[in-house]
């Protein structure tokens, strides 16, 4: 058994221990302990203001915290490669950034205005294919629907394939078919790549169908377990009511 398997029980994992965030005297997150395995899709649910987005931002490194956050992989403990799909994506109607511009800016160091590489274009198209968005490579971000934008950012979050894929309510404002398509893509990713997925979601029926683990958060962890365990627990019923998951 190698080091990772000893510590994680799997090939890689992320350990969050006693993570606490305070804003002046107000507690935003209190002593969060989580152990996330690769190949797992973890959904974080909770009421508004529960600190869900803040937890993701602390994992990314945008918010300062006390406690420890450790990624254990095959090559030892290091900062994980993080893919992130933001919650609010809005671009002014005349924003000139195209899908191709956004991808190239992440892949190349030379200004995207000067990049003409056909190889890079092929690379971008194959990344967009993974998220069913290859036909919008030359569209402007400002012309895309909410669902298309989220898929573009998901495609980008997978270049390179991350150790941790974080999604902050990615399907808010997206139609029903778009939501189902998005979760299917996520579910396939978990099977095909060795990565941990953490998604903040209010779509309880999709969480029930696709997530391996659910964390109910309200400043601290109220419940942590399989979807069925969490949805049938008292903590969930107190926060959301008994008939919420269908």
């Amino acid at each position, binding site marked *: 058994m190698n080091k990772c398997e000893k510590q994680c029980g799997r090939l890689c994992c992320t350990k969050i221990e006693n993570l606490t965030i305070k804003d002046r005297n107000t507690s935003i997150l209190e002593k969060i302990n989580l152990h996330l395995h690769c190949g797992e899709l973890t959904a974080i649910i909770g009421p508004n203001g529960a600190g869900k987005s803040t937890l993701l931002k602390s994992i*990314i490194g945008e918010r300062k915290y006390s406690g420890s956050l450790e990624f254990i992989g095959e090559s030892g403990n290091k900062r994980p490669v993080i893919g992130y799909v933001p919650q609010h994506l809005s671009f002014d109607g005349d924003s*000139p950034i195209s899908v191709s511009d956004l991808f190239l*800016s992440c892949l190349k160091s030379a200004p995207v205005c*000067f990049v003409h590489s056909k190889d890079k274009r092929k690379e971008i198209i194959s990344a967009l294919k993974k998220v069913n968005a290859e036909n919008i490579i030359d569209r402007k971000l400002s012309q895309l629907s909410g669902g298309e934008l989220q898929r573009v950012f998901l495609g980008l979050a997978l270049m390179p394939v991350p150790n941790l894929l974080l999604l902050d309510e990615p399907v808010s404002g997206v139609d029903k078919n778009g939501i189902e398509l998005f979760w299917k893509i996520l579910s396939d990713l978990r099977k095909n790549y060795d990565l941990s997925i953490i998604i903040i979601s209010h779509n309880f029926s999709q969480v029930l169908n696709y997530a391996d683990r659910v964390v109910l958060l309200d400043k601290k962890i109220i419940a942590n377990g399989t979807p069925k365990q969490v949805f049938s627990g008292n903590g969930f019923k107190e926060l959301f009511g008994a008939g919420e998951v269908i």
Partner: protein
Amino acid sequence: MTYALNAWYSFLDLLPFQWTSYIFMKNALLAVLLVTPILGLLGTMIVNNKMSFFSDALGHSALTGVGLGVLFGMRNTDISMVLFAVIFAIGIVFIKHNQKSAMDTTIGVFSSTAVALGIVLLSGGGFNKYSNLLIGDLLSITGSEIIMLFGLLIVVILAWAMMFNTLLIVSANPTFAISRGISTRATDIVFTTLIALVVTLSIKWVGLLIINSLFILPAAASRMLSQNMRQYTIISVAISLVCGVVGLFTAYYLNTSAGATIALYCAAVYFIVLVFLRKI
């Protein structure tokens, strides 16, 4: 550099125009060819990153910088102006990253304080001799100042090449940028320092009331016409250059302020694009 400058003068002497007999026009034309691409290039990034109010405030901070220079008896107030603008810019970035109040309010507070302080400091000995700062005088530029502008153009092009992609990612979503290992604070500090340098080093010729329009108008017009970042950049620089040259000659023949005339041409392009493309 002096050799290149003389070559430029000799080249213009070959042209059959009356204005070529004035050395100040030869200098002013060269200055326009150097300054307008700088402003057009930086303007695209300022508009994309929603910092147009910020660059406007930086222009206003120049008044305070000069005022402080005068107060401390500095012979060359350009140095105090540049220093103050850089400190002002970095100060706003720190507040942006550490405070939750709306950014436009914070900038508004800083900007109006800087203007008030600048006017108080400068009006003691009569403000009139500093009114040039407000409007600028492109025709007063000297050969050595043009060489400095050439250096600034090189710095801006290098910084633009290094920061273009990073600023694009930050403009798309700051948290996403951080997830890709970009320090948004460091990016903001470098970019705002660059804007502070450009604003203060070109304000003498363009004027603090006008400078922001030369950043914003070409980029704003170009945004409406562009399908991607390449078109956005090229069209913005082209509008800046063409309006710069046409504006300079109009100002020469009408005897008006060159900076303001150039800005008016840029505004005309913006409104023409707005009317014809948007059919308002």
